[in-house]
């Protein structure tokens, strides 16, 4: 090969790089075999907390994953392909993403979805930016019961653009519907709420949507996809943009990622969607096919005027989400949501009966709820962790001063025995 190139050594090929620019250090150990690597990885995974029974969420949930999801998303043709720039040899990815978009529309009650965003937090931030573009306004109203991790991402994105954020404190554990309605001004591009919210509470957002629309603002709803098997969808309540963290649709916990964010909207706002969109079309012989469409919005064409900078999204995770919902099907998905609801209601009944513990949510909840303990929750959680159970997320970490509150998550994977054991351990931790 060197002869063909006309070089005498590989070093010759690096001659264009001036000597003074060469690396000053490159201090890495020698390579190993894959067997030695796996031994190291197994050791790290052993210290991964997987022996702890998780009653925690924070937007990330321990749900079942059908075996078919792993198998199909592990098909090399899916996971070693790139962004489908050449549609004729990428119909697999393209059709799957089109089916994904259709699934997200059905999940959220919306009309147009993109092909995925990074995660729940960045999806919410992109939705806020989208609302600014659509309305031409410069501020948003953000409910205080939106997941604090997501709020932090939203505020970071908006701060860069010097857009205003009006953050309301939560009304206890509830969405502050009145407060939000009263905070909408003519500068408000969107009202942002979460459904169910960080504390597990569920609210009907229909009136809020109407009020926002009356004032020329949009309603952005961040929703928990599994809950959409039971709860009114953002679309049904009149939301303009629905987003969410897609992890619970077939993506493993995996210490924080990769997951995917979803975003869907009304058809009239489609040109303001960030990211890739797949559209249906036909080929030269009239056969149906799929392509990346509306690319004029994107960074590789529009550069700094693009709707977003996003290039790589989370295709493979979105594919997992699609296969997850297609695996369960319409009824199975609804049944799964109902099972989550039943499990959490049962947990409420036994945890709420622990001496000194009370339930805080005023509204109905879905699969998460908030307890008030007679001791600081952080202390209790730390103690129970050592006993092998993650009892919940202390509210104080995100809402200073609310020391004794604990958000508890119960998915379909938690057994009655585990719930009962949590109640017993909690009582022990509180009173012994």
């Amino acid at each position, binding site marked *: 090969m060197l002869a063909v190139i006309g070089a005498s050594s590989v070093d010759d090929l690096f001659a264009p790089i001036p000597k003074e620019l*060469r690396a000053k250090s490159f201090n890495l150990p020698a390579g190993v075999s894959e067997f030695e690597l796996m031994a190291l990885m197994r050791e790290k995974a052993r210290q991964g907390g997987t022996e702890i029974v*998780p009653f925690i969420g924070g937007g990330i949930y321990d749900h079942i994953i059908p075996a078919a999801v792993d198998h199909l998303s592990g098909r090399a043709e899916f996971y070693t392909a790139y962004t489908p720039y050449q*549609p*004729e040899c990428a*119909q697999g990815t393209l059709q799957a993403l089109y089916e994904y978009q259709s699934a997200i529309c059905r999940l959220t009650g919306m009309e147009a979805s993109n092909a995925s965003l990074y995660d729940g937090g960045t999806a919410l931030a992109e939705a806020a930016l989208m609302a600014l573009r659509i309305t031409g306004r410069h501020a948003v109203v953000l409910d205080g019961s939106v997941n604090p991790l997501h709020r932090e991402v939203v505020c970071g994105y908006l701060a*860069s653009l010097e857009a205003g954020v009006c953050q309301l404190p939560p009304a206890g554990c509830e969405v502050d519907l009145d407060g939000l309605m009263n905070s909408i001004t003519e500068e408000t591009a969107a009202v942002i709420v979460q459904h169910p919210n960080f504390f597990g509470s569920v609210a009907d957002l229909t009136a809020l949507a109407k009020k926002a629309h009356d004032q020329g603002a949009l309603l952005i709803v961040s929703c928990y996809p599994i809950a959409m098997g039971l709860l*009114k969808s953002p679309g049904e309540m009149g939301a303009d943009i629905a987003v969410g963290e897609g992890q619970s649709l077939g993506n493993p916990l995996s210490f924080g990622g990769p997951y995917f964010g979803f975003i869907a909207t009304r058809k009239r706002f489609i040109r303001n969607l960030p990211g890739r969109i797949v559209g249906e079309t036909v080929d030269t012989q009239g056969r149906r096919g799929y392509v990346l*469409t509306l690319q004029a919005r994107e960074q590789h064409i529009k*550069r700094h005027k693009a709707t977003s900078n996003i290039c790589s999204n989370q295709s493979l995770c979105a594919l997992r989400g699609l296969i997850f919902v297609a695996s369960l099907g319409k009824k*199975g998905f609804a049944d799964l949501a109902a099972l989550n609801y039943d499990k959490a209601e049962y947990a409420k009944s036994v945890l709420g009966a622990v001496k000194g513990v009370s339930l805080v949510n005023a509204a109905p909840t879905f699969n998460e709820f908030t307890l008030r303990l007679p001791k600081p929750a952080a202390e209790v959680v730390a103690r129970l962790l050592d006993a092998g159970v993650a009892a919940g997320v202390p509210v104080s970490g995100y809402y200073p001063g609310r020391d004794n509150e604990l958000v508890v998550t119960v998915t379909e994977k938690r057994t009655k025995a585990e719930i009962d054991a949590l109640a017993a351990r909690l009582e022990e931790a509180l009173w012994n």
Partner: protein
Amino acid sequence: MELIYEKSVAGRSGVRIPVSDVPKAAPLPEALRRTEAAGFPEVSELDLVRHYTNLSRRNFSVDTNFYPLGSCTMKYNAKVMEQAGALFADCHPMLALLPGGEKHVQGPLSLVHGLEQQLAEITGMDEVTTQPLAGAHGEMTGIMVIAAYHKARGEKRKYVIVPDSSHGTNPASAAMAGYEIITIPTAPYGDMDLDAYRAAMNNEVAAVMMTCPNTLGIFNPHIAEICEIAHQAGALAYYDGANLNAILGKVRPGDVGFDVIHVNLHKTFGTPHGGGGPGSGPVGVKKALIPYLPTPRVVKNTDGSFGVESHPEGIGRVSDFFGNFGIMVRAFGYIILLGGEGLIEVSEQAVLNANYMMAKLKGEYELPFDMTCMHECVFSASRQLKDGVHALDIAKYLIDRGFHPPTVYFPLNVKEAIMIEPTETESKATMDAFIEVMLEAAQLTRENPDALHQAPETMPVGRLDETRAARAQQVCCEG
């Protein structure tokens, strides 16, 4: 092929959900309940599996086809990394954020920290964050860190400079981080015009964003000077690591003068591309910028254990946890598997392969910048255009011959660009087969250009009508 929705038969399901072991709860109030279940497809597990298995077969991929997609670094993804990634499937990230939780997740935390250390050494930076979820996300994060740095110094700068050959994400990311963009043209020698750059630089410029080697595959010998010019104006130098695969162990951006860098784990560090993601875009910075890195940070405590902290002056959270952890596992493993010497060989082989391709093809294809390239080379189909054959036609012909086409029409500053990046993992035999087909295409252009216009003919669909798609905006199936 039918859509999965078109295979739906009411009442079917591909998986049984667990039996409930708790009482049925009182129903939610009707006002909160969904009126109609989401219309997901109802199919048996067989129909589900057959559908997506067959759908997968309608893709080209690295594991089935040579994929010389310039600027995307479609290298082979070692299978052992998939096994490694799966080991961490059940690790809940919230555990790390609970009071007393860190000690239960020392394995994953040590891995995050280990990868950050590896990347710092590889790039010559002082500290790295793995939080950004893709390359463009890393760019935005990097620029936000730069903005926070200037702000902390009481400066409000307005501009970010990018060369016209840059990836579109560069200006887009800088814009999302609140900056206006100044674009510098490419000089005839293939690099950013140094005089124009010098002229554009001033104390309202926050940063210059460079890709090096650039998207023409050319290493800019003035790169240290470019950094220096920025520094003199109080601006910072940002390194887009998309093309890092060319210079592992040869050049470290930190040594050259760059202040901020992002790398693409899904390019240089061998993690799979997943049909467009997930990627991962860690950001490295020099010491002065460390305080502005996003929250949370994984730190090594004095007792050797690992913890989670925030920088109070940091830009806050740019994603929900520690980044695309599963991707990080694979990159961490990749660096361990190859080791230092192995990474150097990566770049040497990548550069050797690209120069071999360039030497073999430049007889038939116009090479706008005829010099030693790094990991990729950019041709133009301008000679073929004289016979009415576009870069796109050549691309489609390659599909029929079993090769994924190179990147076409990018970079924007080359007409009818054909951007080839073979990567280090391809064998000479594979490259020779590709070269043969490329030469055939050139010959066919002279003899029967129409044959190229018809391509592809061997795929499930022929050329697709993109205009119609954009007009129809059919992005969701009915029902």
